C-alpha cells in the first residue's frame, strides 16, 4: 500500500477511533451501565461520575505506561541479563555493568558527557540571558529575538551539516571554504594573534572561574554565618558544590597556563573535528547555538515580569545598569534560570544526533547516548546497551525528583 494512503487511513482511523471511543464509552456509561433513570438515578449519576475520569484517562495512561513507564523497568531487567544465542536470556547480575565499567570507551563517553553538562547549559543560559536583556531594550528587539530563536526549528542533523561546512578543511594550497579555517589562516603569530588566541580566551576562562567561584560562595556562605538557620542535610550538598567549584577553577587556571605555553600551528589548515578533547567543544557549539534561543525566550519573559518598582528604586538609589542587572534583576529571575538550566541539562543528557552525524564518537568525542546506540544496534549487545541507558536514567533522576517535588508543592 502507498505509505501516504496508509498515513491518511491511519489519521482517519486514529482520530475516528479516538472520537468513537470517547463518545461511545460515555454513552455506554450513561445509558446502559448506570442510566440516570429509575429508582437509583441519583446513585447511578454519582457512580458514572466516578468512572468517567478513568474513561477519559485510559488511552493516555495506557500509552504512557506502555511507552515510557514499562520500558524503564524492562531496560533495568535487560541490563541484568544476557542474551543467549538462539533466543532466550539468562540472569547475569551486575556482570554487564562490570563489563561496561571496564571499557575505556565508556569512561570517555562519561567524561565527555560531564563536559557537555557543564559547558552547554552554562553557555546557553549565559548567552540567552545576554540576548534577552539586550533585545528587550531596543525597538527591533523582536526581530532580533526571532532570528536568534530560529535555530530551534532546525534539526540536530541539519545543524550538524551547517556546522560541518563551518569546520570544513581543504589542503593548504587550496582556497578554504570553511569559515573557521579561513579565519584561522589569517593569524600569523603577530600582535592580533596574541590578542585573539591567547588573551581573549584567557579572559573568558578567567570570567568562567570567577562565576564558578561566585556561585560556590553563594552556596557555602550560609555555613559560616552564625545565627542563620541552615538545614543540616544541606551541608553535604554545599560541600559537594564547593568541591566541584574548586576543581573547575583549578581546571580553568591550568588551561590559562596551557594557553600561554602552547605553540600554535599557524598557517596550517586544521581538521577541527579530529583534535582530541577540543573537538568536543566544536560539537558543543552546535547545541549551544540551538539552545540559546530557547533560553532567551524564557528568560526574556521572566525579565519582563520583574516588578518595575524594584528597578526604579534602584535607579533612584543611583545604581548603574550593570548593578541593576546583576543585583536586582538576576536574583529575582533565579527560579526561571534554574528551570532553563535543568531543561537544557536534560536535552544535553539525551544528545545523540549531533555526535552521530558529525563524528560518530570517533576521535574521543563519544557521549553516553551514542555509546548506547553503538552497543545496542552495532555491537548488538543488549545487556551493556541497557546498562548504558540505565546510567543516563540515573543521571536524569535527580532532575526528575526535583521536578516532581516542585509540581506537588505547586498543586497543594
Amino acid at each position, binding site marked *: 500500500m502507498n505509505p501516504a494512503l496508509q498515513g491518511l487511513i491511519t489519521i482517519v482511523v486514529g482520530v475516528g477511533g479516538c472520537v468513537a471511543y470517547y463518545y461511545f464509552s460515555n454513552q455506554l456509561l450513561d445509558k446502559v451501565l448506570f442510566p440516570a433513570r429509575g429508582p437509583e438515578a441519583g446513585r447511578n449519576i454519582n457512580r458514572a461520575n466516578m468512572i468517567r475520569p478513568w474513561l477519559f484517562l485510559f488511552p493516555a495512561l495506557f500509552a504512557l505506561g*506502555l511507552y515510557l513507564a514499562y520500558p524503564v523497568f524492562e531496560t533495568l531487567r535487560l541490563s541484568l541479563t544476557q542474551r543467549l544465542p538462539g533466543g532466550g536470556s539468562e540472569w547475569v547480575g551486575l556482570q554487564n555493568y562490570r563489563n561496561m565499567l571496564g571499557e575505556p570507551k565508556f569512561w570517555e563517553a562519561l567524561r565527555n558527557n560531564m563536559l557537555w553538562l557543564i559547558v552547554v547549559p552554562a553557555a546557553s543560559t549565559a548567552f540567552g540571558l545576554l540576548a534577552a536583556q539586550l533585545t528587550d531594550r531596543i525597538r527591533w528587539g523582536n526581530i532580533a529575538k526571532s532570528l536568534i530563536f530560529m535555530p530551534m526549528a*532546525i534539526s540536530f542533523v541539519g545543524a550538524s551539516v551547517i556546522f560541518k561546512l563551518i569546520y570544513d578543511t581543504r589542503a593548504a594550497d587550496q582556497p578554504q571554504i570553511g*569559515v573557521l579555517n579561513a579565519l584561522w589562516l589569517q593569524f600569523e603569530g603577530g600582535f592580533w594573534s596574541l590578542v585573539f588566541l591567547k588573551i581573549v580566551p584567557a579572559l573568558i576562562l578567567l570570567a568562567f572561574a570567577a562565576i564558578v567561584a561566585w556561585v560556590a560562595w553563594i552556596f557555602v556562605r550560609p555555613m559560616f554565618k552564625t545565627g542563620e538557620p541552615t538545614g543540616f542535610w544541606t551541608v553535604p550538598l554545599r560541600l559537594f558544590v564547593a568541591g566541584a567549584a574548586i576543581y573547575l577553577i583549578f581546571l580553568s587556571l591550568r588551561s590559562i597556563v596551557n594557553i600561554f605555553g602552547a605553540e600554535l600551528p599557524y598557517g596550517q589548515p586544521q581538521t577541527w573535528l579530529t583534535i582530541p578533547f577540543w573537538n568536543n567543544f566544536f560539537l558543543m557549539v552546535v547545541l549551544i547555538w540551538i539552545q540559546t534561543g530557547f533560553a532567551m*525566550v524564557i528568560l526574556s519573559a521572566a525579565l519582563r515580569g520583574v516588578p518595575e518598582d524594584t528597578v526604579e528604586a534602584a535607579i533612584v538609589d543611583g545604581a548603574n545598569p550593570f548593578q541593576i542587572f546583576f543585583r536586582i534583576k538576576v536574583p529575582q529571575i533565579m527560579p526561571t534560570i534554574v528551570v532553563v538550566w535543568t531543561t537544557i541539562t536534560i536535552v544535553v543528557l539525551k544528545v545523540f544526533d549531533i555526535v552521530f552525524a558529525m563524528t560518530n564518537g570517533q576521535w574521543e568525542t563519544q557521549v553516553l547516548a551514542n555509546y548506547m546506540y553503538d552497543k545496542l544496534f552495532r555491537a548488538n549487545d543488549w545487556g551493556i546497551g541497557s546498562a548504558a541507558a540505565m546510567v543516563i536514567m540515573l543521571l536524569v533522576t535527580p532532575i526528575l525528583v526535583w521536578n516532581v517535588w516542585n509540581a506537588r508543592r505547586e498543586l497543594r
Partner: protein
Amino acid sequence: MDNIVGKKSGLTWAVHISVALLVALWLFPTLGLFVSSFRTADQIVSSGWWSAFRTQEAQLAPIRVAGEEVQRDGRYVIEGTLFPRGQATLSHWGVNVNRPTEFAPGDTADLGDGVTLTVDETGAYVLSGPSSFEGQRLPRIFSTATTPPEFTLDNYRNILLDPRNVDGMAKAFFNTLTVTIPATIIPILVAAFAAYALAWMDFPGRALLIAAVVGLLVVPLQLALIPLLKLHLNVGIGKGYLGVWLAHTGFGLPLAIYLLRNYMVGLPRDIIENAKVDGATDFQIFTRIILPLSFPALASFAIFQFLWTWNDLLVALVFLIDATGETTVMTKQIVELLGTRGGNWEILATAAFVSIAVPLVVFFTMQRYLVRGLLAGSVK
C-alpha cells in the same frame, strides 16, 4: 528601562551594536548553508560562500585542451573554450604548472615544434600545429579568471526532481511527511481528553497522576528503544510506519498532557460550572467549550510535536527504517550523505536545506504559539 527617570542611557549604541553582532553570529551559519545550496560545485570549491556575492578572480583548475581537429590553411587546428557557460573573463593564463600566469589574454604561446596556442579574453582557445595532434597528449591550460556572482537552482532540481538520483530527497521528504502528520494529530486528541480529566474532574489519585506525568516528562526515550522494539516485533507491527506513529504518540504524550492541563486549569471556572448547571455532560463540556477555548495550547503542542517528529532521527532509525531503506526519512538520508558525499557541498547543503525549509516556514508563521507553549511549559 533605564530611561524611566528621563535619562537616556549612554549605552544605547553599545546595545544596538552588540545585538547586531549577536544576530549576525547566530544567522551566519545558516546563511552559509543557504548560499552554498545555490552555487555550483565548482564555485563552492573555488571560494568560500562569503565571497559568493562578489565578482571574484580565482585560479581555476587546469583544463586540458580538447575538441575536434580540423585542417585549415595547411595547419591542424583545435578550437574550443575554457568557459562553456560563458560567464567568466580571463585575466591570465599559462601552460606550465610553475608559471600559471605567464600570458595575458590574446597572447600566443609557442609550445615548440611550431605548435602555438592562443587564448582570448572570453576563454576561447586556438591550438594549431604543423602536424596532426592525433595520439598526442594535448597541453593543459592554467587560467585565472574573474567570474561575476552566479546562482543556480540546479542543485534543487537534482535533489528534488530527478527520480533516478539515489541521493535524492523526494522520497525521503514524503516519508517524513507521512511520519509527521499522524504522529502530530493523534497524541493531541488522546492528550486533550486526559488533560481535561486531570484539570477539571475530581477523583482520587489525581495529584499522583499529575506528578507521574511531570516525572515522565524527563524520562529519556533512550530507555524505550529496546523494550519497545522487542514488543513491536513480538506483536507483529515490526519496523514500519505504524510502529513509529505509536512511538511518537507515546513519547509526545507527557508534554502534551502537561501543556494542555496547565492551560485548561486556567480557563474560567464559571463557564464550566454554568454549563454543568444547564445540564451539559462532561463530554459535551469538553467538546463544545474546552476544546475550542484551548486552541492556543493545542496549536503550541502541535507545533512542538511537528518540529520534534520532523527533526527526529533516533526514533526513525530504531522503529521505522528497515534494511531495504525504502522508508528512509530526511534526517537519515542526510546522515548517509554526510558519510558518502562528505565533500560534495552542493549536494549536502541542498539536501539539508530541503529538510530545514519546512520547519523554518512553520516556525516563522506560528512563532507566537511556539513561544506561548514554551512559556506555559517552563515558567511554572
